[in-house]
């Protein structure tokens, strides 16, 4: 895999940037690959539109920006509307299903949905919705090794919240594995 482009979109405050940071860190620091993370800078106060991009590669990343994402994670309707048309037609689309009403998929795009916010609320803190999403991303895309992501979570989240965040990760991860099984059955 030479170069994979990932884009994550949502509201400011959902942890969009942190999710991207953990993915990049997992690849760069715990898998020994190369990654570059960039983010959109604008009036991204809580509630505004927010996006982050990561390029993961086995070789040095030269061009730093994402142009045609292979994976798109959307956690807001606006992010879906704005970024879905950019997604590669063989790409993977991950959707926060309670926050995004999605239309039919294009080309060979594989779409998977998760009620990440609801799961996070069940775990006791809505704030970990991004980590639920990260778990989902990890199992569905298999782009980054799950243990590397777990290490990156421990390395990144505030002290004292590691266990909660890892629980959130496992919740999303398991849900993703089940979604893959469902897909296999359907195709199978």
């Amino acid at each position, binding site marked *: 895999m030479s170069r994979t482009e990932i884009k994550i979109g949502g509201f400011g405050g959902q942890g969009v940037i942190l999710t991207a940071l953990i993915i990049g860190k997992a690849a760069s*620091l715990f898998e020994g690959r190369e990654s570059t993370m960039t*983010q959109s800078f604008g009036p991204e106060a809580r509630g505004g539109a927010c996006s982050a991009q990561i390029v993961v590669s086995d070789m040095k990343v030269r061009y730093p920006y994402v142009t045609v994402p292979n994976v798109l994670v959307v956690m807001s309707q606006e992010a879906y509307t704005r970024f879905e048309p950019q997604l590669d037609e063989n790409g993977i689309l991950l959707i926060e299903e309670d926050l995004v009403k999605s239309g039919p998929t294009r080309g060979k795009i594989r779409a998977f949905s998760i009620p990440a916010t609801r799961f996070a609320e069940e775990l006791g803190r809505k704030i970990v919705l991004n980590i639920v999403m990260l778990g989902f991303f990890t199992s569905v895309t298999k782009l980054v090794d799950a243990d590397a992501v777990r290490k990156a979570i421990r390395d990144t989240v505030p002290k004292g919240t590691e266990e909660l965040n890892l629980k959130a990760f496992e919740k999303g991860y398991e849900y993703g594995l089940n979604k893959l099984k469902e897909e296999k059955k359907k195709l199978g």
Partner: protein
Amino acid sequence: MKADPKGVLTGSHYLDGDHACCEGALAAGCRFVAGYPITPSTEVVERFSARIPRVGGIFIQMEDELSSSIAILGASWAGVKSMTVTSGPGFSLMMEHIGLAVMLETPCVYVDVQRGGPSTGLPTLPSQADMMQARWGSHGDYEVIAISPSSPQECFDMTIDAFNLSEQYRTPVFLMMDECVGHMTEKVVIPPADKIEVTPRRYTKLPPGKYLPYKPDRDLVPPIVKAGDGYRFHVTGLTHNEKGYPVMSADCQETLVHRLVDKIRVNAKKIIRYEEEKINGADVIVVSYGITARVAQQAIELARKDGVKVGSLRLVVVWPFPEKRIRELAGKTKAFVVPEMNYGQIVFEVERCAAGRAATFLVPHGGGTTHNPEDIYKKIMEAAG
């Protein structure tokens, strides 16, 4: 001299260029930053203000860029390595004191995280349009040193280089970052303190009474003293003699300003740094710097796939400019292609040195994002004929 371990965050990190620049400054021994936060450079001072109380040093959020750019000169004369950090609009305001820093021969570092201009322009988006401002922005004759990093790792490494050069040559050094490099996050490896080489200040060995603050060593750089160490000295922006006293004469101007210029020119060979790749036998050579060098590399590979012999010369130190090397190459290659995030700055230096012996092509970009590699590729193909 090795770095003071107190300021060195040894290990592998995932940092953006701004944060990496701050760590580079701390590793280099910078213990005073005065700044007026401005996007996209704010993260440098934000991190410095959080880190410095534990390392031991001072951060002052000043009232503006004028005061920031002169406070660092005062700190430097008090014996502390110092830096200020800004972006285009602030850099414009600092120009007067950059001239003063040159005239007083004050070791210090100015970081400019370039954004789109003119004026307030594009606060959150990149450009490389301050390159000539760094060279010529202040009035009068002088030479500068400017370095252009292309990744967060280089933001760390080259901030250290900037401090070392400023100490070696007693001159302000510019770290010319841009928003893209400043805000992109990548792996940054910070070595152990005993693996980081830090240039100590060149203090005089002469006793008070014998010391002349502007009497140069053989390399044209005068040793320095620290305020409060018992030396009698005087600093002024006026043309001054070896004692530091103002002398309004053509002779004194010739002695002083000629030396200030020669201090960099004579030592240019030791300061200049560039990276070449596949230069031998190249029909086209891409000359680039900063983030654009990375983007250009993608274009170069595309052109090579088409069978074009393309070489790459990446300027690490942009000022002083590697005139001699470009002149040599102009006799060997057909054309230079110069992509930069502006409408033509460094390309004129390349053109001047090529002196008609090789064609020179600019790939301009107004900023706001990096070049599309395709545009650079097209120009390479055009240049290859």
